[in-house]
């Protein structure tokens, strides 16, 4: 998957979990949990959608690496087929 496809997948997943959020205004380095007010249930939903879209099952220990939009893209680009 290209970086562009991964970026689209991440934003789509965020959109599902936080429908009201304004993703356009999301800074690449912003903390997702705070910026989008995601609780643990939302974040699990986000990770589950990423797995469905990219095939990458993120273990709980790696959650920290998905703290920001950029982090997510980098993490997934390295692993997605």
């Amino acid at each position, binding site marked *: 998957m290209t970086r562009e496809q991964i970026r689209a997948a991440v934003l789509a997943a965020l959109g599902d979990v936080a429908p009201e*959020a304004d993703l356009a205004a999301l800074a690449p380095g912003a903390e997702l949990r705070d910026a989008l007010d995601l*609780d643990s249930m939302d974040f699990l939903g986000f990770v*589950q959608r990423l797995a469905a879209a990219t095939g990458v099952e993120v273990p*709980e220990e790696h959650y920290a690496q998905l703290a920001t939009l950029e982090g997510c893209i980098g993490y997934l680009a390295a692993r997605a087929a």
Partner: protein
Amino acid sequence: MPSLGADMEAGTLVEWRVAPGQAVRRGDIVALVDTDKAVIEVEIWEDGIVEELLVPPGRKVPVGTPLARLRGASEAAPAPAAPARATAAVSMAPPEPAPPSAPPLAPARVSPAPAAPPAPPAPLAAEAPAARVRVTPLARRVARALGVDLAALHGTGPGGAIVRADVERAAAPAPAAAARPPAAAAASPVAGPAERAAGLRRATAAAMARSKREIPHYYLGTRIDLSRALAWLAAENAQRPVAERLLPAALLLRAVALAAREVAEMNGFWLEGEFRPATAVHLGVGISLRSGGLVAPALRDADRKPLAVLMRELGDLVRRTRAGVLRSSEFGEATLTVTNLGDQGVETVHGVIQPPQVALVGFGRIAEQPWAEHGLLGVRPLVHASLAADHRASDGHRGGRFLTAVDRLLQEPEKL
């Protein structure tokens, strides 16, 4: 005047065939009568001599009216004795005689089937006239039982009607729950997101005020070591696909549900001056809405569902709450509410009980803290569990046993 037809009420004497003084024998034709359908020859059933003709030709008289007086064979009144008129004259419309193939007693030939009836009248316009509030029969019955004033309610049922859940929610609002979440369905087409959020706020305010006014709260709290629970969870999630991954919240809910079965005074309602234990454990799960407000729809039979099912239903409940697609019945059924489940970033939470429930469990943030055990100091992931309970229904001793049960259950996560 004899009855000359099944539906005859009266007859007009057309012509006399006999004159006073004339002798008559049984079976003779004595007169002609018009029954509006036909002119019929009238027989006489007595022998005798005509004394007097009582009804002149051209006059219409009811069946049973004596027509003439007879002397001789029998002094009884001539012609058929005036029968006691059958009160309910048989009224049948068919021309006499209807062809017997048509059932004789049937009304006139059935009019052709009416054109297809117009489509059933469109259901009442959603905007019921202001005066008449539409309430379902069940909602009316429950409102009477819970002493809820219907006028103050906002209906979420079909066509905007007030349904049972609306009433029960009014009687037992969640700390912040009341009207449906902002993304309400067509039920209240008028209210936009802003109005709905305001509606939620107003309803929460009213409920909280009432709760504080009526319920003598007492509060208990304790810290629970989650190290064994979280370790078990990490190992469990490592073998599970992402889609079936568990969260600590599921463990906390499960522990509360099982503890509620052990200490029944926490699980039920205060109604009409007495505690009514609930027959099942439906946990109200506090879910915060990004547009403000918190609702606590019920997770049914949390004590009987395995962890995986509980987790899946919890996820589904949160998703549908956020999407505003909750069923009205899910609001009113909670028997005990659990709030915030460690997501709030604060250590301790003391909630407000939702009447008519009698208890509320609050969980603070799960965080690593110093912990002394066997004389040694260590660092453990701890959570503060609090209980707000209704002193009318239970007392501190029972509340304490409840929290210690939650703690004990969380020390054996594999059994949850």
